């Protein structure tokens, strides 16, 4: 089942603009390796799920996958061949808004090569440019 909030205050939200860089959730926290976005954008719940499925296959039998983003934003659309007006369309899908630097997924318990191969497959499914990152050194 695709991710979406359990309860919301308002069902429909305005489009908004993605400005600036990620100042939170921009480093590997839970696993050892991460997939970081280099561009701003929206990642739909369906895409997050597709990435999860691909990464899960890679970590099967050893390793743990963490999803660091959640689709909080509803995106509406009006049906094709509909006249303008008559109010805002219905919710089409839910999406996570990401800024450059946001960590999308993390993997723990895998070697670097295995994690890199897994995230390479996930990155191909993402609508934004991504890169493979490791944990920051502890100081």
């Amino acid at each position: 089942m695709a991710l979406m909030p359990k309860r919301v205050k308002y069902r429909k939200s305005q489009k908004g603009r993605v400005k600036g860089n990620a100042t939170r959730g921009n480093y590997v926290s839970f696993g050892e390796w991460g997939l970081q976005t280099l561009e701003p954008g929206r990642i739909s719940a369906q895409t997050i799920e597709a990435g999860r499925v691909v990464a899960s296959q890679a970590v099967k039998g050893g390793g743990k996958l963490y999803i660091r983003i959640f689709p909080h934003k509803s995106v509406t659309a009006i049906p094709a061949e509909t006249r303008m007006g008559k109010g805002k369309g219905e919710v089409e899908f839910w999406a996570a808004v990401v800024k450059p630097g946001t960590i999308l997924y993390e993997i723990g318990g895998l070697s670097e090569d295995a994690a890199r191969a897994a995230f390479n497959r996930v990155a191909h499914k993402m609508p934004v440019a991504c890169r493979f990152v490791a944990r920051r050194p502890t100081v």
Partner: protein
Amino acid sequence: MSEAIKLRVETRDPAKNKGTGTRASRKLRAAGRIPAVIYGHKQAVVPITLGAIEARTMIAGASHLAELDLGGQTETVLIRDVQWDHLGREILHIDFARVDKEELIETEVELDYKGDAAGVNDGGLLTPVVRSLTVKCPAGAIPDSIKVDVSALKLGEGIHVRELTLPTGVVAEADPDVLLVHVVAPAQETEAEPGADAIQPEVIKPERKEKGAD
């Protein structure tokens, strides 16, 4: 315990507002230098710069202590904080705190989980919960990492802070009951239910104030 890294640093230009501030810092970074600051021991705060490559080598080496050569004067310092850019590629700023090597300090030390857990062979998954630990120790005796042997861990078992074997003079500054690492059974994947995508979230309706109510 690693030796303190020796670094040559320079003070920032005192003529231009001590060389501090956003514009001065950006110019320094463009020139391959990193702005930093030395403070502590109730002495003056000294804004300094150091080479970006040396700084990155120092941080990548997981060093805690450094000996800064500031125009002939040597300061022993602890790396207190490192600021990174949003992608975690470039170091933006470093905080150094003055320390004596005998002084007791608190710092974060990485936990190094060693060995192949017995529970992993039974289908379990070794899951580290904590990856670094706050410890109190003399500044001159900060361990590079704390080695934790996980080879005896069976499925469902874990290691807590109280079970850690710490080097002499090092005390953990954490609740003894905190779980560090455990071997858990892998979670079962849930299949998507047909038609589940059609479910919409519940809308929280705001409570309306009744007219005339105080």
